[in-house]
């Protein structure tokens, strides 16, 4: 039963990735310029180079064979060269993705830490002033454009008060070797005398981007948890329990929470894809050296191989994250396994 479900999801994953790779491959023809240059990342090739590349990229055979060769190279990690930097796109992606992931994970962590309890609080005081306050604040946070929030925070906390820096991951004067790409881990692993200060500095740098990025998922989780709780609280078994004389605290903790949190868990997983998209904007504003900022720079510089590679990496990541979230949710909630068709 569960195996069947997992197989269905893997089938979905396969077709999504297939479509994604076909789209990415066709981009090199759809972008302006020479498809061979767009694929290889070597601009203005001379005659001998051209012949070599044509052979390597199977440009003499049909589109299907070219596509197969393309997939082969993707699997080998040969994603072409970036026009702008002249180095491998794959190396760039591997280098940059940890920064984006790190920021997204912290933001998600914060939003779960804040969003779920606040949502429960709001449902516990349904239609009383704490609920009204929380719901209206969440509404404001939900509708506020993220770049505007970022600029506001920078203006107040960086420029006016000078409490937090506004760019980068750590003061550039700390030379931290990139071993994992996750800055906090790298500082822990690095071996130098000013470890503690560098850590403090990195946390300082993290604060504003994390708050900005966490804003949207937090408000979503608040609203979702609140609604899910209210729905459960309205069910008969809760009414029975209340009739038996349980206090509100007992009701929520022992009976409602477990049932209400199941759909919330699914929601947390689904937030990850929104988060990656929002992370791009956050990265640009806070000069965070992640994949989003790089992708946007590449678009500005018309660096087609980089755009192609970056798009593929980000989309692949979102697809996998979403399917993983669904799978985890299914393992926790047996009822949902009967779903006949996959959906993302």
């Amino acid at each position: 039963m569960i195996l069947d479900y997992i197989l269905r999801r893997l089938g979905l994953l396969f077709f999504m990735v297939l479509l994604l790779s076909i789209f990415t491959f066709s981009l090199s023809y759809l972008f302006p310029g020479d498809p061979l240059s767009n694929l290889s990342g070597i601009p203005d090739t001379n005659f001998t180079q051209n012949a070599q590349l044509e052979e390597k990229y199977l440009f003499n055979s049909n589109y299907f064979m070219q596509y197969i060769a393309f997939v082969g190279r993707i699997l080998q990690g040969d994603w072409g060269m970036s026009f702008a930097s002249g180095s491998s796109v794959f190396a760039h992606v591997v280098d940059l993705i940890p920064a984006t992931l790190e920021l997204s994970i912290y933001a998600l962590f914060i939003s779960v830490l804040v969003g779920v309890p606040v949502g429960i609080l709001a449902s516990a005081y349904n239609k009383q002033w704490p609920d009204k306050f929380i719901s209206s604040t969440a509404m404001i946070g939900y509708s506020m454009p993220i770049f505007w929030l970022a600029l506001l925070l920078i203006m107040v906390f960086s420029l006016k008060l000078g409490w937090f820096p506004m760019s980068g991951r750590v003061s550039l004067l700390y030379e931290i070797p990139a071993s994992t790409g996750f800055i906090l881990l790298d500082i822990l692993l690095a071996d130098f005398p000013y470890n503690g200060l560098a850590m403090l500095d990195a946390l300082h740098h993290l604060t504003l981007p994390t708050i900005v990025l966490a804003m949207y998922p937090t408000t979503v989780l608040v609203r979702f948890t609140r609604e899910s709780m209210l729905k459960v609280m309205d069910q008969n078994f809760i009414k029975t329990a209340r009739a038996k004389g349980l206090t509100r605290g007992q009701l929520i903790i022992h009976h409602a929470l477990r049932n209400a949190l199941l759909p919330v868990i699914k929601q947390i997983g689904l937030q990850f894809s929104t988060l990656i998209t929002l992370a791009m904007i956050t990265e640009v504003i806070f000069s965070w050296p992640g994949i989003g900022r790089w992708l946007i720079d590449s678009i500005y510089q018309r660096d087609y191989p980089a755009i192609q590679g970056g798009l593929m990496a980000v989309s692949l990541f979102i697809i996998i994250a979403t399917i993983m979230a669904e799978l985890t949710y299914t393992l926790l909630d047996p009822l949902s396994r009967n779903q006949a068709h996959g959906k993302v």
Partner: protein
Amino acid sequence: MHKLLLALISLSLVGCIDSKEEILEEKNQGLVYCAEANPVSFNPQVTTTGSTIDIIANQLYDRLISIDPVTAEFKSELATDWKISKDGKSVTFTLRKGVKFHTTSYFTPSREFNADDVIFTFSRLFDVYNPYHFIGDANYPYFQSVGIDQLIRKIVRVSDHQVRFELFNAESSFLANMATDFAVVLSKEYAMALKANNQENLFDQYPIGTGPYIYKEYRRDHLVRFYKNADYWKHEVALEQLVYDITPNGTTRIAKILTKECDVTAHPSSAQLSILAQRDDINVERETNLNIGYWAFNTERPPFDNLKVRQALVHAIDIDKIMQAVYYGNGLRAQSILPPTSWAFELQKNMPIFDPQLAKKLLTEAGFPKGFDMSIWAMPVSRIYNPNARKMAELMQSDLRKIGVNVNIVEYEWNTFIQRIGEHRHDSVLLGWAADTPDPDNFFSPLLSCTATFSGKNPANWCNPEFDLLLTKALDTTDLNLRKQYYDAAQSMIIKQLPLLPIAHGMRFQASSADVEGITLGPFGAISLANARKK
């Protein structure tokens, strides 16, 4: 017993505080400089991009001689002394002893700086037998634009610490060119070590010099890190670390200096200077600078090969408006291609004036009564000579629309932009030039000579033998009066032929934290952070 414990605790506390202060100091001994673009190379010989030269030239390298910014006299650097022969055709440099090249993770020098390094460095520029001449497509834009290959006959090793440059003819700007930021001395030993491993292409990326700082790492779009050169021959270097934070956005650079993420920032936008000037903890310096911002036409491409068209276009531009909206009163309207502080400056009486009627008439005479479509390439970064080319291009776009010329504004990332301008793919371009030496030739040969056209420096793509003859004559003599006459003629010829329209001379600005000292702006050349320190 209790006393002992107390003593122990206080001792350990003292220890704590001590180490903490030491650590804080560690960070304070470094300086962060917000730079506006990635360096294109780490060898000043192969580029003239100002943003790159600012980062590398004075920090990593030394020259044989330099020019004093105040007295404009030559000063000794790696050469302690130099003698010019009577006929002016040979110059002998006596070299400094005891100068060490950098020791890095990729190279350890076994000997000190000597004549071999000088010969290697300068023969690379013109000698096809130099093993490095063809590395990087033999492109040495500054030296090619001043015609170095037609100037140096050979370089002779007199002794370990003496070299003689033999010239084809006596050229008055030879020493000035040797004092530019591009004429740095490289290590021959390092070059040969790389050659032995077939890694010649790394030579211009991993620098070895004699300068105050040592290359540590470069991460594209992120940072360049230098360490202090403890063996610097000239003086003690105060900073342990020098980091360039690469921040292309001008507003972000201003914000970073406000939040103390940068200690010094290059080219703060003049529109935002007033914000910085209000703060006590930030110093703003301004200095007149030898530079020119111009609008150059690709004179090989129709219809810009037609003088009437060029005249029509320049008469349609309202420069007063540009001076207000782009330079915010911090620029000087150009009256010639040379700035007024140059000794060869001659005010040009027939500078084109704003006259749309005349422009329209000229355009009709040229055969375009209905106008045409063209592109203006606007550089994407802010430089001294043009703080905001995009805005300037937009103003010009609206001016030109009135005479029926439709303008399409083109922008690329800076290094790509420079490269494509070098390939002359543009119709017209808003660009500029900041002088490397006070010698007036620096404004003519690198910009508008025929050799500059071939090396991709001449953005007007303009090769006029008559003009070149004037420049050669001016260089062939050391008589100042005679030189001035030739340069007068050259200046008026530019205004008459209009390969480019001189627009304005910008002021050089720099904003720095109040606790940083020892960084001075000069009227020409790249910035030097050798003496920078924190209070």
